[in-house]
C-alpha cells in the first residue's frame, strides 16, 4: 500500500519533538481525527529549526516527517511554495485515500509560517 519512503519516514520519523523557543501551530482533520503540530524557529528569514508531533495514520506521520526535512534550512519564501503535490512526490506517492495526510502537513506548515515574525 505504501512506498518505501513513506514506510521509512513512518518507522523512523525525522525531527520529532518540539522547538522550545519556536512558533507553534496545530491542525486537525475532522474526518478521521488526524492531528499535526509543527514548531518552527525562523532567523533572518531562514527556517533554522523545525520539529513535529502527529497523531493519526501512516500518511500523516510520514508527510510531517518529510516536510520537516524539506523545509529545514530553507528560506521562508521557499518553504511557503511547498504544495501537497510536492510532498506526495517526495514521499514517492500516496494512495488516493491517504492524500489527506500530506494535505494536513502542508496546511499546518502554512499556519505556522503565517504565525512567524517577518
Amino acid at each position, binding site marked *: 500500500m505504501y512506498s518505501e519512503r513513506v514506510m521509512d519516514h513512518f*518507522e523512523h520519523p525525522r525531527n520529532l519533538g518540539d522547538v522550545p523557543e519556536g512558533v507553534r501551530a496545530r491542525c486537525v482533520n475532522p*474526518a*478521521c*481525527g488526524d492531528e499535526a503540530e509543527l514548531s518552527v524557529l525562523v532567523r533572518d528569514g531562514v527556517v533554522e529549526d523545525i520539529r513535529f508531533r502527529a*497523531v493519526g*495514520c501512516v500518511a*500523516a506521520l510520514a508527510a510531517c516527517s518529510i516536510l520537516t526535512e524539506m523545509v529545514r534550512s530553507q528560506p521562508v519564501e521557499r518553504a511557503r511554495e511547498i504544495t501537497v503535490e510536492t510532498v506526495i512526490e517526495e514521499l514517492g506517492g500516496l*494512495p488516493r485515500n491517504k492524500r489527506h495526510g500530506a494535505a494536513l502537513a502542508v496546511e499546518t506548515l502554512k499556519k505556522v509560517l503565517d504565525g512567524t515574525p517577518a
Partner: protein
Amino acid sequence: MLPWLGCANPSSLHALGRAAREAVEEARSSIASCLGARPEEVIFTSGGTEANVLALTGLASRVVTSVVEHPSVLESVPGTWACDEYGRVSPGSFEGGLVSLQAANNEVGTLQPIVPVAREVRARGGLFHTDAVQAVGKIPLPWREFDAMSLSGHKFGGPQGVGALLVREGLEVRPLLPGGGQEDGRRSGTLNVAGIVGMAAALRAYQAPDPSLGLLLRSRLEGLGELTGHPTERLPGIVSFTFEGIGGESLVMLLEARGVCASTGAACASEKSRPSHVLRAMGRVARGSLRLSLGPATTREEVERAVDLVVECVGELRRRSGCTVSA
C-alpha cells in the same frame, strides 16, 4: 478437499456426479448435526454475505435490523435498533415481518441477546434471523429458537468462499439466484463441492480459542488502553481496545512490521476512509482502536509477545504525538 477440486457436477446423473452428490449430502448432514438442525434446513451459499442477503431479501418483505450489523446486512436494510456504549442492542419497534440480529459483533466481540429477542419476535408472529458468522463454534446457538441463521466457512477454519443459510423447515425463501434450481430451487448454481466438504470438516474439527488467553490479553492491556465491547457478554477470542494519544492505522502498521497482524476500526482502516460504524454507534471515537483475534492455535507465548509489542508500539506512537498518558 483435494479429491473434490474439479470433480464432477453433483447435479449430474452419472456415477461421478453421484459420488460428488454423496459428498455434498454427507457434508450437509454433518453441518446440520453440528448445529442441531435437519439437513433439509441447510442451504449452501458462497459465504456469509450471500447467506445474509438471501435471508434479508427472501424471507419477508418487512425487515428490521440493528445499527451494528455487518455491512452485508446494512447494505440491504438500514439499521434502526440502537445499541448501548458496549455495542449491545436493545430491541426497538417491530411491526411484523423479519428481525435480523447478529449473534456476536465482529468488531468488538459483544454478544447480542438473540434468544430473548427471538422468543419475543416469534411470539408476536414474526420471523427471526441471526447472522451467526462470528459465533458458530464459539458460543451455544440453539437453532430451534431461530427461523434462519447465517454461517461462513472461513470463520471456523474452513475455506473462504463458502457458507450456508439455515432456514427452518417449512419456511419458504425466495431465491436470490434463480437458475438451474439447485438446493431445492432456493439457490441455483453448481455447488462448490470442495468448499462444502472442507467447511463440514472444519466445523467438525473446530475448537474455540482458549478463553483464558483472551482474559490474559485483556488484563495485560487494560492499564494501557480502554477495552471496547461488553465486559462480560463477549466472544472469548476477540479483544478490542482504544488507546489515547494515537490514531489511524499507525498502530496496526507498526505492529505488522513486528510480526503481529491486527485490525482497527479507525477511519483510515483498510482501503476505506470511513470510521467504524460500530464504534460510532457505541459513541466511541474510532481513532486509536485495535482489534486482536485469537485462534484455536494461538499459544500463551504468542499472546505474551503480542502484549509486549503492543505496549512498545503504543508507547512509541504516544511519544510521536506528545501524548503524556503513561504506558
